[in-house]
Protein backbone atom coordinates (compact mmCIF):
# COMPACT_ATOMS: atom_id res chain seq x y z
CA UNK A 1 0.00 0.00 0.00
CA UNK A 2 1.45 3.36 -1.09
CA UNK A 3 -0.31 5.44 1.55
CA UNK A 4 -2.36 4.65 4.64
CA UNK A 5 -6.08 5.35 5.12
CA UNK A 6 -7.14 8.69 6.56
CA UNK A 7 -10.53 10.21 7.32
CA UNK A 8 -11.55 13.86 7.15
CA UNK A 9 -12.69 15.97 10.08
CA UNK A 10 -14.10 19.49 10.14
CA UNK A 11 -10.65 21.08 9.91
CA UNK A 12 -9.56 19.05 6.87
CA UNK A 13 -12.82 18.81 4.85
CA UNK A 14 -11.97 21.54 2.31
CA UNK A 15 -8.40 20.26 1.97
CA UNK A 16 -9.58 16.73 1.16
CA UNK A 17 -12.12 18.11 -1.31
CA UNK A 18 -8.99 19.50 -3.02
CA UNK A 19 -7.00 16.27 -2.93
CA UNK A 20 -10.03 14.49 -4.39
CA UNK A 21 -9.51 16.73 -7.45
CA UNK A 22 -5.77 15.96 -7.42
CA UNK A 23 -4.86 19.32 -5.88
CA UNK A 24 -2.75 20.27 -2.86
CA UNK A 25 -4.50 23.37 -1.55
CA UNK A 26 -2.57 26.25 0.01
CA UNK A 27 -3.80 29.58 1.34
CA UNK A 28 -2.93 32.86 -0.38
CA UNK A 29 -3.37 36.28 1.27
CA UNK A 30 -4.09 39.59 -0.57
CA UNK A 31 -0.35 40.41 -0.53
CA UNK A 32 0.36 37.19 -2.41
CA UNK A 33 2.03 35.23 0.44
CA UNK A 34 1.36 31.50 0.57
CA UNK A 35 0.69 29.64 3.82
CA UNK A 36 0.10 25.95 4.63
CA UNK A 37 -3.54 24.75 4.42
CA UNK A 38 -3.90 24.31 8.21
CA UNK A 39 -3.10 28.03 8.84
CA UNK A 40 -5.50 30.36 10.69
CA UNK A 41 -3.71 33.41 9.29
CA UNK A 42 -1.00 34.23 6.76
CA UNK A 43 2.28 33.08 8.28
CA UNK A 44 4.10 36.03 6.70
CA UNK A 45 1.80 39.05 7.31
CA UNK A 46 -0.90 37.67 9.68
CA UNK A 47 -3.75 38.52 7.30
CA UNK A 48 -6.85 36.43 7.97
CA UNK A 49 -8.17 37.11 4.46
CA UNK A 50 -7.08 33.79 3.02
CA UNK A 51 -8.12 32.22 -0.27
CA UNK A 52 -7.57 28.52 -1.01
CA UNK A 53 -5.52 27.99 -4.17
CA UNK A 54 -4.00 24.86 -5.69
CA UNK A 55 -0.23 24.53 -5.40
CA UNK A 56 1.64 24.33 -8.70
CA UNK A 57 2.93 20.92 -7.65
CA UNK A 58 6.64 21.74 -7.98
CA UNK A 59 8.82 21.22 -4.89
CA UNK A 60 12.42 20.60 -3.75
CA UNK A 61 13.79 18.33 -1.03
CA UNK A 62 14.71 20.14 2.22
CA UNK A 63 15.46 16.93 4.12
CA UNK A 64 14.91 13.20 3.66
CA UNK A 65 14.94 9.98 5.63
CA UNK A 66 14.33 6.31 5.02
CA UNK A 67 11.88 4.53 7.33
CA UNK A 68 12.48 0.78 7.61
CA UNK A 69 9.25 -1.15 8.08
CA UNK A 70 8.51 -4.69 9.20
CA UNK A 71 8.94 -7.12 6.32
CA UNK A 72 11.76 -5.14 4.70
CA UNK A 73 9.63 -2.43 3.09
CA UNK A 74 11.09 1.07 3.09
CA UNK A 75 9.38 4.49 2.95
CA UNK A 76 11.32 7.49 1.63
CA UNK A 77 10.18 10.45 3.75
CA UNK A 78 10.81 14.10 2.96
CA UNK A 79 10.34 17.62 4.13
CA UNK A 80 9.83 19.36 0.77
CA UNK A 81 9.67 23.05 -0.01
CA UNK A 82 6.76 23.75 -2.36
CA UNK A 83 7.68 26.28 -5.03
CA UNK A 84 5.22 28.70 -3.38
CA UNK A 85 7.30 28.63 -0.14
CA UNK A 86 5.44 26.47 2.39
CA UNK A 87 6.95 23.14 3.43
CA UNK A 88 5.11 19.83 3.07
CA UNK A 89 5.97 16.61 4.91
CA UNK A 90 5.19 13.42 3.00
CA UNK A 91 6.78 10.49 1.20
CA UNK A 92 8.34 10.07 -2.23
CA UNK A 93 6.99 7.10 -4.19
CA UNK A 94 8.43 5.01 -7.03
CA UNK A 95 12.02 6.00 -6.24
CA UNK A 96 15.27 4.60 -4.84
CA UNK A 97 16.57 6.26 -1.63
CA UNK A 98 19.81 7.37 -3.31
CA UNK A 99 17.82 9.52 -5.78
CA UNK A 100 16.26 11.61 -3.02
CA UNK A 101 18.94 14.10 -1.99
CA UNK A 102 18.71 17.65 -0.64
CA UNK A 103 17.56 19.97 -3.44
CA UNK A 104 16.17 17.17 -5.66
CA UNK A 105 13.12 18.29 -7.66
CA UNK A 106 9.75 16.72 -6.90
CA UNK A 107 6.17 16.79 -8.21
CA UNK A 108 3.00 16.44 -6.11
CA UNK A 109 0.63 13.57 -6.91
CA UNK A 110 -2.21 12.13 -4.83
CA UNK A 111 -2.66 8.52 -3.76
CA UNK A 112 -5.49 6.82 -1.92
CA UNK A 113 -5.39 3.74 0.33
CA UNK A 114 -8.88 2.53 -0.70
CA UNK A 115 -12.28 3.77 -1.81
CA UNK A 116 -13.27 4.77 1.74
CA UNK A 117 -10.16 6.83 2.40
CA UNK A 118 -9.31 10.41 1.49
CA UNK A 119 -6.63 11.07 -1.15
CA UNK A 120 -3.17 11.88 0.28
CA UNK A 121 -0.59 14.16 -1.39
CA UNK A 122 2.75 12.43 -1.98
CA UNK A 123 5.72 13.20 -4.22
CA UNK A 124 7.42 11.68 -7.25
CA UNK A 125 10.76 12.72 -8.66
CA UNK A 126 10.16 15.48 -11.23
Amino acid at each position, binding site marked *: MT*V*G*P*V*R*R*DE*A*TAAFFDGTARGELLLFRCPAGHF*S*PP*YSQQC*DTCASVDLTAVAASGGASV*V*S*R*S*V*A*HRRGGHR*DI*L*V*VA*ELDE*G*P*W*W*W*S*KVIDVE*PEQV*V*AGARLTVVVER*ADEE*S*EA*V*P*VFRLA
Partner: protein
Amino acid sequence: MADRSAAIAGLGMTDLGKVYGRTAAQFAGDAVRLAVADAGLELGDVDGLLTSAGVSGGVGLALQRDLGLRDLRLLSEMQSYGSTAGQMVQYASLAIGAGMAETVACVFADAPLRQDTSTGAAYGARGAVGWRGLLGAAGIRDTNSMYALAAQRHMDTYGTTNDQLGHIAVGQRAWAELNPRAQMRTPMTLEDYHASRWIVEPFHLLDCCLVSNGGIAVVVTSAERAASLARPPVHVLGWGQAHPGHAQRRHEDFGLVSGAARSGPAALAMAGLTVSDVDVVELYDCYTFTVVITLEDYGFCPKGEGGRFVADGTLGPDGKLKVNTGGGQLSSSYMWGMTPLSEAVLQARGEAGRRQVPEHDVVLVSGNGGVLDHHSTLVLSPHGPAGRSSS
Protein backbone atom coordinates in the same frame (compact mmCIF):
# COMPACT_ATOMS: atom_id res chain seq x y z
CA MET B 1 16.36 41.62 51.86
CA ALA B 2 15.50 38.01 52.57
CA ASP B 3 17.07 35.46 50.24
CA ARG B 4 14.13 34.01 48.38
CA SER B 5 16.20 31.90 46.01
CA ALA B 6 15.12 28.30 45.53
CA ALA B 7 16.81 24.96 45.97
CA ILE B 8 15.99 21.35 45.22
CA ALA B 9 15.78 19.64 48.59
CA GLY B 10 14.42 16.22 47.70
CA LEU B 11 14.63 13.67 44.89
CA GLY B 12 12.42 10.59 44.53
CA MET B 13 12.89 7.92 41.86
CA THR B 14 10.79 4.77 41.57
CA ASP B 15 12.15 1.67 39.88
CA LEU B 16 12.46 2.63 36.22
CA GLY B 17 12.16 0.64 33.00
CA LYS B 18 10.29 -2.61 32.49
CA VAL B 19 8.40 -2.25 35.75
CA TYR B 20 4.86 -3.60 35.48
CA GLY B 21 1.74 -3.71 37.60
CA ARG B 22 1.58 -0.04 38.58
CA THR B 23 -0.25 2.80 36.86
CA ALA B 24 1.32 6.16 36.02
CA ALA B 25 -0.69 7.71 38.87
CA GLN B 26 0.72 5.17 41.31
CA PHE B 27 4.27 5.80 40.08
CA ALA B 28 3.66 9.55 40.53
CA GLY B 29 2.44 9.06 44.10
CA ASP B 30 5.40 6.82 44.88
CA ALA B 31 7.86 9.36 43.44
CA VAL B 32 6.45 12.26 45.47
CA ARG B 33 6.43 10.21 48.68
CA LEU B 34 10.06 9.24 48.04
CA ALA B 35 11.11 12.82 47.25
CA VAL B 36 9.43 14.25 50.35
CA ALA B 37 11.00 11.58 52.57
CA ASP B 38 14.39 12.16 50.90
CA ALA B 39 14.18 15.82 51.90
CA GLY B 40 13.36 14.86 55.48
CA LEU B 41 9.90 16.38 55.19
CA GLU B 42 6.35 15.16 55.70
CA LEU B 43 3.65 15.25 53.01
CA GLY B 44 1.89 17.84 55.17
CA ASP B 45 4.84 20.22 54.55
CA VAL B 46 4.08 20.30 50.81
CA ASP B 47 2.06 23.38 49.85
CA GLY B 48 2.52 23.22 46.09
CA LEU B 49 2.19 20.45 43.49
CA LEU B 50 3.00 20.51 39.77
CA THR B 51 2.30 17.41 37.70
CA SER B 52 3.44 16.22 34.29
CA ALA B 53 2.00 13.21 32.45
CA GLY B 54 3.68 11.18 29.71
CA VAL B 55 2.12 9.35 26.77
CA SER B 56 0.02 7.09 28.97
CA GLY B 57 -1.60 10.07 30.73
CA GLY B 58 -3.23 9.62 34.11
CA VAL B 59 -1.04 11.99 36.13
CA GLY B 60 -2.84 15.18 37.10
CA LEU B 61 -4.83 17.12 39.64
CA ALA B 62 -6.19 13.94 41.24
CA LEU B 63 -2.71 13.34 42.63
CA GLN B 64 -3.50 15.89 45.33
CA ARG B 65 -6.16 13.57 46.75
CA ASP B 66 -4.05 10.46 46.17
CA LEU B 67 -1.41 12.05 48.39
CA GLY B 68 -3.85 13.55 50.89
CA LEU B 69 -2.47 17.03 50.31
CA ARG B 70 -4.71 19.67 51.90
CA ASP B 71 -4.88 23.42 51.44
CA LEU B 72 -2.33 23.65 48.64
CA ARG B 73 -1.33 27.15 47.57
CA LEU B 74 -0.20 26.03 44.10
CA LEU B 75 -1.54 23.15 41.99
CA SER B 76 -1.44 22.59 38.23
CA GLU B 77 -0.96 20.06 35.48
CA MET B 78 1.77 21.16 33.09
CA GLN B 79 2.53 20.22 29.49
CA SER B 80 5.41 21.36 27.32
CA TYR B 81 6.49 17.83 26.48
CA GLY B 82 10.15 17.15 27.20
CA SER B 83 10.79 20.68 28.46
CA THR B 84 8.18 20.32 31.23
CA ALA B 85 10.38 18.98 34.04
CA GLY B 86 12.75 21.94 33.84
CA GLN B 87 9.80 24.29 33.58
CA MET B 88 8.17 22.86 36.71
CA VAL B 89 11.33 23.70 38.68
CA GLN B 90 11.26 27.20 37.16
CA TYR B 91 7.63 27.89 38.12
CA ALA B 92 8.20 26.38 41.57
CA SER B 93 11.22 28.69 42.03
CA LEU B 94 9.17 31.70 40.93
CA ALA B 95 6.34 30.81 43.33
CA ILE B 96 8.80 30.38 46.19
CA GLY B 97 10.55 33.64 45.27
CA ALA B 98 7.23 35.47 45.33
CA GLY B 99 6.25 33.98 48.66
CA MET B 100 3.29 32.24 47.08
CA ALA B 101 4.38 28.78 48.19
CA GLU B 102 7.17 27.36 50.33
CA THR B 103 7.60 23.71 49.35
CA VAL B 104 6.59 22.53 45.88
CA ALA B 105 6.65 18.92 44.67
CA CYS B 106 7.18 18.51 40.90
CA VAL B 107 6.49 15.08 39.44
CA PHE B 108 6.57 13.22 36.13
CA ALA B 109 5.38 9.64 35.72
CA ASP B 110 4.51 7.43 32.78
CA ALA B 111 3.58 3.80 32.16
CA PRO B 112 3.58 3.28 28.37
CA LEU B 113 5.01 -0.25 28.51
CA ARG B 114 2.64 -3.20 28.74
CA GLN B 115 3.91 -6.70 29.23
CA ASP B 116 2.04 -7.94 26.14
CA THR B 117 2.94 -5.24 23.56
CA SER B 118 6.15 -4.13 21.84
CA THR B 119 7.98 -0.99 22.91
CA GLY B 120 7.37 0.49 19.46
CA ALA B 121 3.62 0.09 19.87
CA ALA B 122 3.81 1.98 23.15
CA TYR B 123 4.65 5.21 21.35
CA GLY B 124 3.29 4.47 17.86
CA ALA B 125 -0.49 4.27 18.06
CA ARG B 126 -2.36 7.17 16.47
CA GLY B 127 -5.79 7.47 14.87
CA ALA B 128 -5.75 8.32 11.16
CA VAL B 129 -8.03 11.38 11.21
CA GLY B 130 -7.47 14.99 10.19
CA TRP B 131 -4.08 16.69 9.85
CA ARG B 132 -2.29 14.30 12.20
CA GLY B 133 -3.83 11.34 10.44
CA LEU B 134 -2.74 12.76 7.09
CA LEU B 135 0.88 12.89 8.24
CA GLY B 136 0.72 9.26 9.35
CA ALA B 137 -1.02 8.16 6.13
CA ALA B 138 1.90 9.70 4.22
CA GLY B 139 4.36 7.55 6.20
CA ILE B 140 5.42 10.06 8.86
CA ARG B 141 4.00 7.98 11.64
CA ASP B 142 6.04 8.87 14.69
CA THR B 143 8.52 11.15 16.37
CA ASN B 144 11.41 8.99 15.16
CA SER B 145 10.64 10.03 11.56
CA MET B 146 10.42 13.72 12.40
CA TYR B 147 13.71 13.82 14.32
CA ALA B 148 15.32 11.76 11.57
CA LEU B 149 14.35 14.47 9.08
CA ALA B 150 15.83 17.10 11.41
CA ALA B 151 19.04 15.13 11.86
CA GLN B 152 19.50 14.43 8.14
CA ARG B 153 19.25 18.14 7.40
CA HIS B 154 22.02 18.79 9.94
CA MET B 155 24.11 16.03 8.36
CA ASP B 156 23.56 17.34 4.82
CA THR B 157 24.31 20.92 5.87
CA TYR B 158 27.28 20.47 8.22
CA GLY B 159 28.68 17.05 7.34
CA THR B 160 27.62 15.41 10.60
CA THR B 161 28.02 11.60 10.28
CA ASN B 162 26.54 8.43 11.76
CA ASP B 163 29.98 7.62 13.13
CA GLN B 164 29.85 10.84 15.13
CA LEU B 165 26.32 10.11 16.39
CA GLY B 166 27.62 6.67 17.37
CA HIS B 167 30.22 8.24 19.67
CA ILE B 168 27.36 9.72 21.68
CA ALA B 169 25.60 6.37 22.08
CA VAL B 170 28.88 4.65 23.00
CA GLY B 171 29.98 7.38 25.43
CA GLN B 172 26.68 7.39 27.26
CA ARG B 173 26.61 3.59 27.50
CA ALA B 174 30.02 3.75 29.20
CA TRP B 175 28.49 6.10 31.79
CA ALA B 176 25.46 3.80 32.17
CA GLU B 177 27.75 0.91 33.07
CA LEU B 178 28.54 2.90 36.24
CA ASN B 179 24.85 3.55 37.03
CA PRO B 180 23.08 0.71 38.88
CA ARG B 181 19.68 2.19 37.91
CA ALA B 182 20.41 2.17 34.16
CA GLN B 183 18.31 -0.13 31.96
CA MET B 184 21.20 -0.78 29.53
CA ARG B 185 24.55 -1.57 31.16
CA THR B 186 26.21 -4.00 28.76
CA PRO B 187 29.25 -2.39 27.07
CA MET B 188 28.71 -0.97 23.56
CA THR B 189 31.26 -0.41 20.80
CA LEU B 190 31.03 1.78 17.73
CA GLU B 191 30.69 -1.48 15.75
CA ASP B 192 27.67 -2.45 17.86
CA TYR B 193 26.18 0.95 17.08
CA HIS B 194 26.63 0.58 13.31
CA ALA B 195 25.32 -3.00 13.42
CA SER B 196 22.11 -2.08 15.22
CA ARG B 197 19.12 -2.12 12.89
CA TRP B 198 17.87 0.95 11.07
CA ILE B 199 14.74 2.50 12.53
CA VAL B 200 14.45 5.57 10.33
CA GLU B 201 17.67 6.56 8.57
CA PRO B 202 19.81 8.27 9.71
CA PHE B 203 18.82 6.68 13.04
CA HIS B 204 19.84 3.20 14.09
CA LEU B 205 18.09 1.59 17.05
CA LEU B 206 20.97 2.80 19.23
CA ASP B 207 20.34 6.44 18.24
CA CYS B 208 16.92 6.31 19.91
CA CYS B 209 15.88 6.66 23.54
CA LEU B 210 14.49 3.83 25.61
CA VAL B 211 10.85 3.43 26.62
CA SER B 212 10.38 3.28 30.39
CA ASN B 213 7.75 2.97 33.09
CA GLY B 214 8.21 4.78 36.38
CA GLY B 215 8.13 8.15 38.08
CA ILE B 216 10.54 10.82 39.31
CA ALA B 217 9.80 13.78 41.58
CA VAL B 218 11.78 16.65 43.06
CA VAL B 219 10.91 18.88 46.00
CA VAL B 220 11.75 22.56 45.52
CA THR B 221 11.84 24.88 48.52
CA SER B 222 13.52 28.08 49.64
CA ALA B 223 17.29 27.91 49.90
CA GLU B 224 16.87 29.05 53.50
CA ARG B 225 14.63 26.13 54.38
CA ALA B 226 16.66 23.67 52.30
CA ALA B 227 19.74 24.45 54.39
CA SER B 228 18.11 22.85 57.45
CA LEU B 229 16.81 19.73 55.69
CA ALA B 230 18.15 16.21 55.28
CA ARG B 231 20.02 16.43 51.97
CA PRO B 232 22.63 18.82 50.56
CA PRO B 233 20.65 21.63 48.86
CA VAL B 234 20.92 21.94 45.10
CA HIS B 235 20.52 25.62 44.35
CA VAL B 236 18.61 26.82 41.31
CA LEU B 237 20.88 29.60 40.07
CA GLY B 238 19.41 30.31 36.67
CA TRP B 239 16.87 29.22 34.12
CA GLY B 240 15.48 29.89 30.69
CA GLN B 241 12.95 28.71 28.15
CA ALA B 242 12.72 29.09 24.39
CA HIS B 243 9.87 28.18 22.07
CA PRO B 244 10.95 29.20 18.53
CA GLY B 245 7.52 28.80 16.92
CA HIS B 246 9.03 27.71 13.63
CA ALA B 247 6.87 28.30 10.58
CA GLN B 248 6.74 25.50 8.04
CA ARG B 249 8.26 27.45 5.20
CA ARG B 250 11.26 28.61 3.18
CA HIS B 251 14.36 29.75 5.14
CA GLU B 252 13.39 28.07 8.42
CA ASP B 253 16.32 26.63 10.40
CA PHE B 254 14.53 23.40 11.38
CA GLY B 255 17.15 20.77 12.23
CA LEU B 256 19.94 23.33 12.28
CA VAL B 257 19.22 25.50 15.36
CA SER B 258 16.98 24.76 18.36
CA GLY B 259 15.51 26.79 21.22
CA ALA B 260 18.64 25.88 23.22
CA ALA B 261 20.43 28.73 21.42
CA ARG B 262 18.36 31.27 23.35
CA SER B 263 17.43 29.33 26.47
CA GLY B 264 20.97 28.28 27.41
CA PRO B 265 22.63 31.73 27.32
CA ALA B 266 19.62 33.23 29.15
CA ALA B 267 19.89 30.68 31.96
CA LEU B 268 23.65 31.12 32.31
CA ALA B 269 23.31 34.93 32.27
CA MET B 270 20.73 34.74 35.08
CA ALA B 271 23.25 32.70 37.08
CA GLY B 272 26.04 35.16 36.26
CA LEU B 273 28.00 32.38 34.56
CA THR B 274 29.22 31.41 31.12
CA VAL B 275 29.41 28.07 29.37
CA SER B 276 33.10 27.74 30.36
CA ASP B 277 32.03 27.61 34.04
CA VAL B 278 29.93 24.46 33.48
CA ASP B 279 31.32 21.30 35.10
CA VAL B 280 28.58 18.77 34.34
CA VAL B 281 26.11 18.74 31.43
CA GLU B 282 22.87 16.76 31.61
CA LEU B 283 21.15 16.98 28.23
CA TYR B 284 17.78 15.81 26.99
CA ASP B 285 18.79 13.02 24.61
CA CYS B 286 15.67 11.60 23.00
CA TYR B 287 18.04 10.91 20.08
CA THR B 288 21.83 11.10 19.76
CA PHE B 289 21.27 14.02 17.39
CA THR B 290 19.54 16.04 20.11
CA VAL B 291 22.82 16.00 22.04
CA VAL B 292 24.72 17.34 19.01
CA ILE B 293 22.40 20.25 18.34
CA THR B 294 22.08 21.15 22.04
CA LEU B 295 25.86 21.19 22.60
CA GLU B 296 26.21 23.51 19.59
CA ASP B 297 23.33 25.78 20.62
CA TYR B 298 24.59 26.06 24.21
CA GLY B 299 27.95 27.16 22.82
CA PHE B 300 30.18 24.23 23.83
CA CYS B 301 31.36 24.22 20.21
CA PRO B 302 30.67 26.34 17.11
CA LYS B 303 27.46 25.78 15.08
CA GLY B 304 27.93 22.84 12.76
CA GLU B 305 30.92 21.45 14.69
CA GLY B 306 28.86 19.31 17.08
CA GLY B 307 29.55 16.07 15.27
CA ARG B 308 33.30 16.54 15.17
CA PHE B 309 33.21 17.81 18.79
CA VAL B 310 31.58 14.66 20.20
CA ALA B 311 33.80 12.31 18.17
CA ASP B 312 36.98 13.85 19.49
CA GLY B 313 37.27 12.10 22.87
CA THR B 314 34.79 14.51 24.39
CA LEU B 315 32.21 12.10 25.82
CA GLY B 316 32.20 9.17 28.23
CA PRO B 317 33.68 8.90 31.73
CA ASP B 318 37.20 9.65 30.43
CA GLY B 319 36.07 12.47 28.13
CA LYS B 320 36.89 16.15 28.31
CA LEU B 321 33.27 17.19 28.95
CA LYS B 322 31.09 15.32 31.44
CA VAL B 323 27.83 14.82 29.50
CA ASN B 324 24.86 12.62 30.47
CA THR B 325 26.72 10.96 33.29
CA GLY B 326 23.96 8.52 34.18
CA GLY B 327 23.65 7.15 30.66
CA GLY B 328 20.78 9.47 29.73
CA GLN B 329 17.59 8.54 27.95
CA LEU B 330 19.61 6.47 25.48
CA SER B 331 20.99 4.01 28.04
CA SER B 332 19.53 4.70 31.50
CA SER B 333 15.80 5.36 31.24
CA TYR B 334 13.31 7.64 29.50
CA MET B 335 11.52 9.81 32.05
CA TRP B 336 11.32 12.81 29.71
CA GLY B 337 12.98 15.87 31.31
CA MET B 338 13.27 14.15 34.68
CA THR B 339 16.05 11.91 33.32
CA PRO B 340 18.62 14.75 32.95
CA LEU B 341 17.22 16.62 35.98
CA SER B 342 17.48 13.69 38.40
CA GLU B 343 21.05 12.92 37.34
CA ALA B 344 21.92 16.60 37.72
CA VAL B 345 20.62 16.59 41.31
CA LEU B 346 22.67 13.50 42.17
CA GLN B 347 25.83 14.98 40.61
CA ALA B 348 25.37 18.39 42.28
CA ARG B 349 24.94 16.68 45.66
CA GLY B 350 28.01 14.53 45.13
CA GLU B 351 25.86 11.39 45.46
CA ALA B 352 26.41 9.80 42.04
CA GLY B 353 28.56 6.94 43.33
CA ARG B 354 31.08 5.46 40.90
CA ARG B 355 30.08 7.94 38.22
CA GLN B 356 30.42 11.03 40.41
CA VAL B 357 32.22 13.87 38.62
CA PRO B 358 34.80 15.32 41.07
CA GLU B 359 34.16 18.92 39.99
CA HIS B 360 30.42 19.55 40.16
CA ASP B 361 30.01 23.19 41.14
CA VAL B 362 27.92 24.08 38.09
CA VAL B 363 25.52 21.59 36.48
CA LEU B 364 23.65 22.56 33.31
CA VAL B 365 20.37 20.75 32.55
CA SER B 366 18.35 20.81 29.33
CA GLY B 367 14.79 19.84 28.48
CA ASN B 368 13.51 19.54 24.92
CA GLY B 369 10.00 18.91 23.66
CA GLY B 370 8.06 18.51 20.46
CA VAL B 371 10.39 18.24 17.47
CA LEU B 372 12.93 20.78 18.80
CA ASP B 373 9.95 23.09 19.44
CA HIS B 374 10.22 23.64 23.22
CA HIS B 375 13.35 24.10 25.29
CA SER B 376 14.06 24.62 29.00
CA THR B 377 17.38 25.11 30.77
CA LEU B 378 18.37 25.00 34.44
CA VAL B 379 21.66 25.98 36.06
CA LEU B 380 22.11 24.05 39.32
CA SER B 381 24.82 24.18 41.96
CA PRO B 382 25.63 22.88 45.44
CA HIS B 383 26.51 26.51 46.24
CA GLY B 384 23.95 29.27 46.74
CA PRO B 385 24.15 32.58 44.88
CA ALA B 386 26.10 34.18 47.78
CA GLY B 387 28.35 31.20 48.54
CA ARG B 388 29.39 30.91 44.93
CA SER B 389 30.62 34.51 44.65
CA SER B 390 32.80 34.07 47.74
CA SER B 391 34.29 30.77 46.59
